[in-house]
C-alpha cells in the first residue's frame, strides 16, 4: 500500500461515513450527495485494488499475509454497491445512515489492511 493513498482512503471514507450518518439522523433520505460520497469511496477502493496488484511487482511487498489483505479488500469493495442498492430500494432516512455505516466500516477495514501490509506480524 502507499501511505499517502491510504490516508486519503481512510479520510474520505470517514468523512463520507460521518456525513451520511449525520444527514440520515437529521431525516434526509438518500440523495445525490450521500450516494455519490459512498460511490467515491468505491472508486478509491478500486484504485487500491490496482495499487495492490502492482505494488509487489514494484518492490513494495506486504509484510503480513497477502491472502488476508485481499479478503479485507474484496469484502470492502462489495460494501458500497450493497449499501447503495439498499438506499435505492428503501427510500428512507435510515438508508442514509446505512450508507454511513458502510463507509465507516470501510475506513476501519482500510486501517486494518494497512496494518497487514506494513506492520510485521500483524
Amino acid at each position, binding site marked *: 500500500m502507499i501511505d499517502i493513498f491510504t490516508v486519503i482512503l481512510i479520510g474520505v471514507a470517514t468523512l463520507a461515513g460521518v456525513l451520511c450518518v449525520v444527514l440520515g439522523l437529521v431525516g434526509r433520505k438518500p440523495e445525490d450527495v450521500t450516494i455519490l460520497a459512498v460511490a467515491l469511496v468505491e472508486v478509491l477502493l478500486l484504485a487500491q485494488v490496482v495499487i495492490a496488484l502492482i505494488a509487489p511487482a514494484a518492490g513494495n511487498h506486504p509484510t*503480513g*499475509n497477502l*491472502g*488476508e489483505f485481499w*479478503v*479485507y479488500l474484496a*469484502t470492502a469493495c462489495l*460494501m458500497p454497491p450493497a*449499501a447503495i442498492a*439498499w438506499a435505492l430500494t*428503501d427510500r*428512507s*432516512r*435510515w*438508508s442514509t*445512515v*446505512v450508507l454511513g*455505516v*458502510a463507509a465507516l*466500516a470501510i475506513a*476501519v*477495514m482500510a486501517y*486494518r489492511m494497512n*496494518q497487514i501490509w506494513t506492520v510485521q*506480524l*500483524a
Partner: protein
Amino acid sequence: MSTRRLDSSQLAGPGRILVAVYAVLAVAATGRSVFQIIDRFGEAPIAFSLSALAAVVYIVATLALALRWTTIAWVTIGFEFVGVLVIGTVSVLAPGLLGLDSVDPFGREATVWSAYGAGYLCIPLVLPVIGLFYLWRGRRVTAAESAAVESAP
C-alpha cells in the same frame, strides 16, 4: 391512534440500522475467523473456535432481526452479550486460558470478543445492549397493541 408514541412501522426504521450493523459485524467476524482457522488454527485453537462460533451467531442474529424471528433474536443477541462479557474478561485477565499470547485487540490472534471487542471499536459490546433494548421496546409495543385490541369495545 395519535396518543400512541410508537408503532411497529416506526420501530422498523431504526431497526434497519441494527440489521445493517449486524450484517457488517457478521461479515467481519466470519471473514476473520475463517482466515485464522485456515491459516493458523494451531496457534490458538480455543480462541479461533470461539471466534467462528461468534461469527455463526452473528449471522443468525442478523437474519433473525431482518426476518423478525423474535425468539431467535433474543437468544442469539443474549448469547453474544454473555459471550463478549465472559470471553472479554477472560481475554484480559487470563489470555493463556484461551491459548492467546497477548490481549492485543489488533493482533494476529485477536478475535471479535477479545478485550471486549476493542479491535472492533467495542461494537461487539455495545451492539447487543442496543439490540436487547430494541427487542424489549418492540415487545412492550406489541403488548400495548394487543391490550388496546382487547379493551376495544
